[in-house]
């Protein structure tokens, strides 16, 4: 049995739901970010798989390049925000950060 499009899509579905579970359940803000990275990676696998098998050709890979660019910018800004939250609240537990101004 050869490896086809569906194999890659199944891997990306599993990765997506694992990332979603991390985003919902974990309380550490950095772990929520890691779940987000898993979700973005699963979307990227889909793009590249369709680039090879689904006739998107090189445009799927270009879309994946832009996703990687956005992920880098998002990670930088989000970690800056997390550091700032830690300075103000002395915690990064997303359940305890519930006021705008103390």
């Amino acid at each position, binding site marked *: 049995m050869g490896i086809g499009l569906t194999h890659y899509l199944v891997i990306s579905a599993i990765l997506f739901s694992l990332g979603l579970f991390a985003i919902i359940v974990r309380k550490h803000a950095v772990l929520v970010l890691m779940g987000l990275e898993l979700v973005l990676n699963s979307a990227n696998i889909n793009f590249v798989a369709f680039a090879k098998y689904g006739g998107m050709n090189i445009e799927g890979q*270009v879309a994946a390049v832009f996703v990687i660019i956005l992920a880098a910018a998002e990670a930088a800004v989000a970690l800056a925000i997390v550091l700032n939250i830690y300075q103000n609240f002395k915690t990064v537990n997303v359940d305890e950060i519930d006021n705008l101004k103390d």
Partner: protein
Amino acid sequence: MDLVGLAFYFLAALIVISAAIVVFSKNIMYSAFSLMFTFFGVAGLYVLLNADFLAVTQIMVYIGGILVLIIFGVMLTTRITGVDVKSNSLGKIQVGIAGLLSTIIAISLIVVFSSTKWFLSEPKVSGDSTKLIGNELLTNYLLAFEAASVLLLIAIIGAAFIARRK
């Protein structure tokens, strides 16, 4: 089983197991380091999918950039003695509901993916994906390319501004 199939199943196992460690590990440092193996596995999948430029980009940007940022974030925000112990104190019911939801989404996605008749086109054999991506970026996607450069500049300035100590 041919070599491609063997490589695919190895990478798939690597991705799923290390992603599971990321999600379920109590120690956040284990999660951060396990994320590295997930990214390596995804880069390997890109190689299998003839996307060599993307594989190298994945390793350089994700592992060399984002993962280092994340580890910095972990080290700067976690007291090393009390690693993320309270982090998993969500109630059993909430965890159960979240797990059920994720499982339902995973199963329905897999069912949809495997039951849909995808329009499959024969892959056009093209050796040099780097050249093709460069051509696309500077012709059809020029506006998005320039917008991405502005976005990265804004992200650098914004991150430095937000994270500095007042």
